[in-house]
């Protein structure tokens, strides 16, 4: 096929489309935005009107007070990451978007579990928490609250373990993520 640098004409048959393929996996977008009123509404509104589902979303300050960081996860089987990213880039307050590669990313979330346990069962739950490197942050006669930090998989595994004991409530922050190595996310 005629390379861009050559004079040779090309064959149309060899052209391939840069299709909006669906990757089929979870994507974590790290979005650097201006720290201004209404920016989160603009992003959430964009997702709503384009019909994209957000799985988790966290917002927080960064090392520079002019900017905030939004970490957002969505299902790449349902939406084209290319189209989502391009639409986000159209927002004037969005500075930078990284579609984080799972292998090069450290992602964590925090979860709090309130479990209905007493007596011997309490000890059992505390033991499980230890295995997951969780912390018991509150105990009453009939309940414990466990704090777990980790990947989504780890938190979901812990949930499966304690649910049979009687899970009263679970709260999760949604993931934050940072790229590995010296470079900026």
């Amino acid at each position, binding site marked *: 096929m005629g390379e861009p640098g050559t004079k040779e004409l090309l064959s149309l048959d060899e*052209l391939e489309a840069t299709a909006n393929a669906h990757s089929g996996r979870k994507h974590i977008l790290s979005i650097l935005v201006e720290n201004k009123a*209404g920016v989160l509404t603009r992003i959430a509104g964009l997702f709503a009107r384009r019909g994209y589902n957000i799985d988790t979303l966290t917002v927080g300050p960064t090392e520079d007070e002019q900017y905030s960081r939004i970490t957002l996860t969505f299902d790449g089987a349902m939406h084209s990451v290319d*189209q989502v990213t*391009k639409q986000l880039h159209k927002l004037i307050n969005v500075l930078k978007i990284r579609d984080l590669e799972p292998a090069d990313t450290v992602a964590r979330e925090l979860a709090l579990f309130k479990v209905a346990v007493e007596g011997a069962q309490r000890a059992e739950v505390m033991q499980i928490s230890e295995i997951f490197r969780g912390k018991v942050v509150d105990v009453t006669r009939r309940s414990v609250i466990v704090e777990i930090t980790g990947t989504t998989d780890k938190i979901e595994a812990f949930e499966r373990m304690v649910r049979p004991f009687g899970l009263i409530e679970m709260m999760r922050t949604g993931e934050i993520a940072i790229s590995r190595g010296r470079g900026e996310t």
Partner: protein
Amino acid sequence: MRAVDAIMECLKAEGVEVVFGLPGGANLPTYDAFVDAGIRHVLVRHEAGGGHAAEGYAKATGRVGVAFATSGPGATNIVTPIVDAMMDSVPTVFITGQVRTDLIGTDGFQETDTLGITMPVVKHSFQIRSPLEIPRAIHEAFHIARSGRPGPVVVDIPVDLSRAEISYAPVTDIHLPGYQPNTDGNTKQIRQAAKAMASARRPVIYAGGGVINANASQELTEFATSDRFPVTCTLMGLGAFPAPHPQWLGMLGMHGTRTANYAMDEADLICCIGARFDDRITGKLSEFAPHAKFIHIDIDPAEISKTIPAHIPIVGDCRNVLTKLIKEYRLLEGVDPSRTDEWWQKIRGWQDKYPLAYTDSTDAEIKPQFMMQALYEATGGDAIVTSDVGQHQMWAAQHYHFSEPRRWINSGGLGTMGFGLPAALGAQVGCPDATVVCIAGDGSIQMNIQELATCAEDKIPVKVFIMNNGYLGMVRQWQELFWDKRYSHVDMGSYPDFVKLAEAYGATGMRFTDKATLVDDMKAALATDGPVVVDVRVTREENTYPMIAPGQAAREMVG
């Protein structure tokens, strides 16, 4: 100076010569500033009229259109023009008043969350929180509205802040780190596109409103004629390529020509320039242009591969890209111009077999298609034509041949009835020496007819031609074709009397019913001073053909 005087200075620094608007409680200070500002203000009769007038002005001149409205109902009334400007990429700035800062969030009188309501439909918006922000916000608003893919920007200013004392110096150092439109176009991709065009045996250039926004019509024509590339344009692109022209296929899409749609259907390479594969173009997506590869040139990266995957994507300003594309095409060696001979034979075959035809009446009755041809003749094809939305819009697009850009001004993406008259008003203010004609339906004209008073008062001599069939014609057509002729609420009856209404508004009213004298009658209307409203009585139940039924493929065109 007062912040409102600074607003006027900002407008002057941005080259604004006219503002369309209507005062109210929350923008009283701004209107006080108009008294001494020396900027023309056109007092519209409804904020929607002001918004569409700003659009008409912008589309006719290429400059940023500006509309003012007060808070609450004033702001909600301009929502439709804002959406319209977003859908059709019209450079516009809307400045709305807001209740005092201490009332915000308390459901104050005439309070509405203007920013929240407009957020999904603007290119960007600013809520002013300190008077010191006002000058920069307004300059940034103009920068954002006119650069990249143009669009509407809203600046919402609480009334107390607009009265504050500030010092003003023109802002010249606009830097928006999150907004850096790529306008150049990747040279390698452009070279690849040139080569693909040189290899194509059945190429089609499909151009849209982006070519007009980029002022790239000349470059488009030069590129198309650098080889014999067939050209079709979208509704928004009409005039980007001069019609009639031997390489012109007519408009494409739902009511486009069979030739244009069949050419898309059989093309092996489609070069899309400043268009976005709207559903009114593609019809059934899975059967759209099944044999084609796509070059897609657009300033907005999000449009590329949105619905149709592009084989050669080029992000850039149409004019920059076309200039480079012309150069690259000329540098190619071994291009065989005869490779498209067979393709042209086929196209000529379609053109001969399927001209835009209709059965004319045998008596004095005026067929709507005849009316459009008569208007083309009466204006010498030389008018700025605005239109409302419906059958008349499609007939105008088909039968009025636009030889230059910015002559055809209509609401494409949003399809806003009531757009035509205020848009004509705005176009006429921007182009005082041009003949400005508004083609309206008897349904749509009534949606902003109050602007006739604006035209009469400000001596804005637009000529309105109402294609009067007494129906919401396009809806009637769809009920006839797709809803078993179960006509539901489409008969508009015989009121109002448009001639009397025109006169009541201070315009001249006329009524034409005879085909034989129509062209001369139209010439007389066009020669009449001041605004004129002509009630043209046309065949009541005529359908707009040809047509691709919704969700169908181009090759299944009917009529």
